């Protein structure tokens, strides 16, 4: 009897899981940074990666590991919005995908930064009122993060985004 009961519970859980996951798979690709939590599913599919979730005090971290070795972490606040993304690994992630609607602002900023007079090969640091993007590293080892400063949940420090 107990075995049957366990079987029933397990299959119920699977049914719940399926009910939750299947609608997610059908969701369109929303923006990542600034988007809702559902957009992470799109990022995961785009990266062909595996995913795990870590709960913190006032936010949830969704971690996507791509088969290239690059890891992307998306930080979701209690209201379900992605307020930050961070990444590390041998190759840059698809910045268009993970920055979503913020990509054009990022691109304009990075391109104006690189047109200054003196040549330099140094980290990318974009610090605008509505968007911070930081990228460092070297060949086969890149790391960085992007966040929306005024959307950090209270008590969250920039250092937590990594």
């Amino acid at each position, binding site marked *: 009897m107990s075995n049957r009961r366990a079987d029933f519970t397990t299959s119920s859980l699977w049914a719940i899981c399926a009910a939750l996951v299947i609608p997610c798979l059908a969701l369109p690709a929303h923006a990542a940074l600034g988007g809702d939590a559902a957009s992470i599913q799109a990022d995961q599919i785009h990266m062909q990666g595996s995913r795990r*979730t870590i709960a913190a005090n006032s936010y949830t971290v969704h971690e996507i590991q791509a088969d290239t070795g690059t890891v992307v972490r998306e930080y979701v606040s209690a209201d379900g919005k992605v307020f930050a993304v961070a990444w590390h690994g041998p190759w840059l992630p698809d910045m268009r995908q993970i920055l979503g609607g913020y990509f054009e602002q990022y691109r304009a900023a990075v391109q104006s930064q690189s047109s200054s007079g003196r040549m330099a090969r*140094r*980290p990318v640091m974009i610090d605008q009122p509505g968007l911070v993007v930081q990228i*460092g590293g070297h060949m086969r080892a890149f790391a960085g993060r992007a966040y929306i400063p005024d959307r950090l949940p209270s008590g969250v420090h920039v250092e937590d985004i990594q």
Partner: protein
Amino acid sequence: MRNLRILSVLMALVACMCLAGCGGGSSKSSNGGSPPNPIASSSGSNVAPIAVNGGPVGNYDDAAFASVTVCVPGTSTCQTIDGVLVDTGSSGLRILSSALTVALPQQKASDGNPVAECLTFLGSFTWGPVQTADVQIGGEKASAVPIQVLSDTDFPLPDKSSCKSSGFNSADTLQTLGANGILGVGLFAQDCGGGCVNSTGPGLYYKCPSSGCVPTDEALAEQVANPVALFASDNNGVIVELPAVSGAEASVSGSLVFGIGTQSNNGLGGATVYTAPGFVFTTTYSGHTYPGSFVDSGSNGLFFANTTGIVECSTDMGFYCPSTTLNLSATNQGANGASGPVNFSIANAQTLFSNANDHAFGDLGGPTPTSNADYFDWGLPFFFGHNVFTAIEGKSTPGGAGPYWAY
């Protein structure tokens, strides 16, 4: 809302399961350090002169430049190109299409379509066809080396590419690269390595039918290669030799020496070997440990986390601007346990840059982009006054097999 609540319950469950997978760490031992290797000016068939002189545009700070000769494979149709950036932080020879006057053969994929490459650096990328050249530097020669020819126009950059999705600008012209090319003589034998062999995931290689370039995989032997690894001899690594620089100088000259322990002029001597099996080693600075640290002549400063409140420049963004020069110390440690201190100084970059004719700065540094970055980047200032050995992965040397740095 209900879906969200159920989702958050599920997330919490998953989180519980995930927590068990976290953690880890490493223990470290330490040996005594050794004094820096003395600088000797080198000569011989395995030596190429280099200069820190601003480069061919005259605006490139703390960067070393060499001359490289490329030839149509198997012929004496050759061209010497000067102003090529010496970069121990990357691997592979990249030459501006606009600087090339010899016609090199185009590499083709198995289906006959030409191969091109996109490589992202920090804040810029290089794009263009993969071609084949015999490469001569100093008295050394490598045959049929895949190189990247940098060109925005030979093949249209596809929208679906890691270059486009990086958001960076291309650095395929003299003005945007600040050099006629990049001579990548780092720890790697190829630029991508195993990650591109059976996968298009890294987004480096493309095949280009007339309909447009699409991602492709690339066998190791076809990848843009560290030309040193393909030299007939003296092929296990390089030494960058540059004199000490205090303050600011217009230019300094040094040597790029090929081979480690293969000739009378390239022995390790008193240098300490710091092995880097993961292509990184560990730097400890100001009480913090940076396990992803590296030595990179292609970085124009010492870049490390600003954990002590060093004043950062307001106009020369990305560099430090302390009111007086700071004398600092850090400790490097290899995976082999070898450990030793490095003393370095950080001067006010704005002051250093005040004379536009100066291009060699011994005390130039800046912050890493995030205070929790896992690396200390020992850029070109570290090379001034040190003979720095870079041993290529898988190559044997008297100090053991690469990859390692020694100094």
